[in-house]
C-alpha cells in the first residue's frame, strides 16, 4: 500500500496547490500505485523527454498542465525538441506540425524548465551526485545518470517525467532503492583481445551486446582494465539503452558504484555469468550496419547522444582539415555550440562541410533530404533508430572511418579486428 505524507495529501486536497500541481502529483501517485511503490521520494532534478513532438496529444496534455499553473519544483532540463531554434529552417515539418512542436516546447518553458534541448544534459552541467535521487527521462540520459554519475533514477517516460518535475517527487521503487541497484548478471570481457578493447568502436558495440543480454536487468561488466572516457561511457550507455531496457550498468573498476565485484552483487552470487567472446562482438558490430553496399554514401551523422566538445575537437583533428564530399551532420546542443564558436572550432568544421544541428538531431525530426539513402555513423543509437525513423540505412564504423568516408564520398571501412 502506498502511504503519502501529510504534505502530499495536502497538495492533493488543498486549494492552495494549483490544479496543474494537483494533476501532476496525482499522476505520480497513480504511477506509484501501479508500480507497487510504498511511498514517494523527493527528487533534486529532472530531465524531460516529453518536449519532443510526436503528435498533438502530448502538446494538449502539457499545455493543459501549464495553463493550470503547473511549475517545476526542481531544476529541470529539457531533452531535444523537434525544432532547431537556431537554424529554424532545418526541420522539414508542415507548418501545422512546426507550430505544434513549438507549442510543446513553449509549454515546458512556461512550466519553468531550463530550455537546454539536449539528450546529453550531463554535458551542460546537469550532473547529480552519487546517491542523489532524480527523475530523468531519455533512455541514454537515464543510463548515464545511473551508471556514470551514480545518481538514482528509473527510466521515466514522457509525461511521468514532467509530472515528477512539477511535484518534486517520484515513486520510490526500482533503481531509487538500494537493493534494486545490485547487479543480477555478470558479463565478462576479460578474454577479448586487448587491441579490441582499444578500438574506437568497442564501447558502442559492447553496449549493443549488453542491451541484448541484460534486457531490463542490472548487469555488471568485468574485464575492462583501462580508463574509459566519458564519451566512451556515453556511447556504451546509449547503445545498451537502444537494444535493451537498460537503466544501470556497473563497470567494475570504472563506474562509481562498482568498486569491486562482491559489492556490486550485494555479496550474493551472480544469477548468471556470461563470457563475451569475439564472435558475439563481431555479430553485434555487423548488425549495426543495415546495408551490404560498400558504395556511395549520402551523409555522415554524428552525435547521438549529442556530440561533445572533445568529440568535435577529435573530428577536426582526424579530418586533417580535408573537405567532406557529403554532408557531415553534427548534432549537438546550444551550450556546446557556443563553446565551439568561442574556441573557433565551429567555423572551421563548417568550412570542411559539417552541418550543425542544434537543439535536436537528424533522427528525431525530419531534417535529412529525400526519403532515404545511406548514412554512415559511429553512433550505435543512430544505427539502431535511423532506418525506422528516417529511411536512411546505416553503415556503422569508427569516427576515423566516418571521416574518411565523408572525404571520399563512399564507405571506406577499416574493419580491423571486426573482420
Amino acid at each position, binding site marked *: 500500500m502506498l502511504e503519502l505524507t501529510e504534505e502530499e495529501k495536502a497538495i492533493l486536497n488543498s486549494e492552495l496547490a494549483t490544479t496543474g500541481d494537483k*494533476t501532476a502529483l*496525482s*499522476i505520480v501517485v*497513480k*504511477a506509484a500505485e*501501479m*508500480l*507497487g511503490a510504498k511511498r514517494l521520494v523527493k527528487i533534486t532534478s529532472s530531465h524531460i*523527454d*516529453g518536449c*519532443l513532438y*510526436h*503528435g*498533438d*496529444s*502530448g502538446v*494538449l*496534455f502539457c499545455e*493543459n498542465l501549464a495553463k493550470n499553473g503547473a511549475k517545476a519544483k526542481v531544476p529541470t532540463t529539457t531533452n531535444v525538441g523537434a525544432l532547431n531554434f537556431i537554424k529554424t529552417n532545418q526541420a522539414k515539418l508542415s507548418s501545422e506540425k512546426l507550430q505544434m512542436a513549438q507549442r510543446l516546447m513553449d509549454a515546458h518553458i512556461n512550466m519553468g524548465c531550463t530550455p537546454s534541448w539536449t539528450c546529453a544534459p550531463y554535458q551542460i552541467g546537469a550532473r547529480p551526485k552519487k546517491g542523489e535521487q532524480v527523475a530523468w*527521462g*531519455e*533512455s541514454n540520459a*537515464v543510463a548515464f545518470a545511473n551508471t556514470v554519475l551514480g545518481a538514482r533514477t*528509473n*527510466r*521515466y*517516460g*514522457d*509525461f*511521468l*517525467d514532467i509530472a515528477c518535475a512539477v511535484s518534486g517527487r517520484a*515513486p520510490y521503487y*526500482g533503481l531509487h532503492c538500494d537493493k534494486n541497484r545490485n547487479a543480477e548478471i555478470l558479463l565478462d570481457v576479460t578474454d577479448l583481445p586487448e587491441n579490441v578493447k582499444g578500438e574506437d568502436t568497442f564501447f558502442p558495440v559492447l553496449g549493443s551486446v549488453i*542491451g541484448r543480454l541484460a*534486457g*531490463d536487468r542490472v548487469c555488471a561488466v568485468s574485464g575492462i582494465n583501462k580508463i574509459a572516457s566519458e564519451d566512451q561511457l556515453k556511447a556504451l550507455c546509449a547503445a545498451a*539503452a*537502444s*537494444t*535493451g*531496457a537498460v*537503466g544501470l550498468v556497473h563497470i567494475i573498476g570504472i563506474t562509481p558504484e562498482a568498486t569491486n565485484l562482491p559489492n556490486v552483487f550485494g555479496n550474493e552470487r551472480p544469477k548468471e555469468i556470461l563470457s563475451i567472446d569475439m564472435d558475439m562482438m563481431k555479430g553485434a558490430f555487423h548488425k549495426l550496419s*543495415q546495408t551490404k553496399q560498400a558504395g556511395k554514401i549520402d551523409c555522415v551523422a554524428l552525435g547521438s547522444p549529442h556530440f561533445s566538445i572533445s568529440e568535435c575537437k577529435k573530428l577536426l583533428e582526424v579530418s586533417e582539415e580535408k573537405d567532406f564530399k557529403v554532408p557531415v551532420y553534427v548534432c549537438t546542443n546550444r551550450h556546446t555550440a557556443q563553446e565551439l564558436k568561442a574556441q573557433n572550432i565551429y567555423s572551421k568544421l563548417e568550412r570542411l562541410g559539417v552541418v550543425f544541428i542544434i537543439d535536436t538531431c537528424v533522427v528525431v525530426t525530419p531534417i535529412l533530404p529525400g526519403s532515404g539513402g545511406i548514412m554512415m555513423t559511429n553512433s550505435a543509437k543512430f544505427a*539502431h*533508430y535511423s*532506418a*525506422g*525513423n528516417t529511411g536512411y*540505412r546505416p553503415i556503422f564504423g569508427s569516427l576515423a572511418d566516418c571521416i574518411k568516408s565523408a572525404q571520399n564520398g563512399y564507405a571506406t571501412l577499416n574493419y580491423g579486428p571486426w573482420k
Partner: protein
Amino acid sequence: MSWCGQVLYSGTAKGTVLRLEAPISFWGGISPDNAEVVLENHPQRGLKITDKILIVPDPIGSSSSAAILLELLYAKIAPKGLILGTNKDAILPISVLVAEQMGWNTIPIIAMENPTFKSGEELEIKTDGTIHSI
C-alpha cells in the same frame, strides 16, 4: 482457460491477440500516424497494432514510447489492451494515466511473467486482471 495478471491499468477488452515476436521500442518501432510496425528487420514489419490485444513480452528502448502510445489512444488507433512481460517501468502504462486525465480513451494494461499467448488467439481481459480465452 483463464490466467491472472497484475493490473497496471484496469479496464475491459475483447479481441484478437497480436504477439510482438521480437523486442520493440514503440518510439522508432511503431508509427504514431497509422499504428504500423516500422522497425527495420522486425519480423512483423508492416502489421498494424490497432484494435489488437497486444502482447509485448519485452518492451525495450526509448522513453518516448509513452508519447507514441498516447498518440495512438488520442487518434483512436490504439490496441484494445496491452499485456506486458514486465512491470518494471511505467513507460507504456503512463500514457493511459494521461489519457484518463485528458478524458480520452483508456485501455487495460496487464503485466504477467512470460505471457504465452499466440497471435490469432481470442482473449477477453476483465477489470480484475483475469484473462480468459474465448
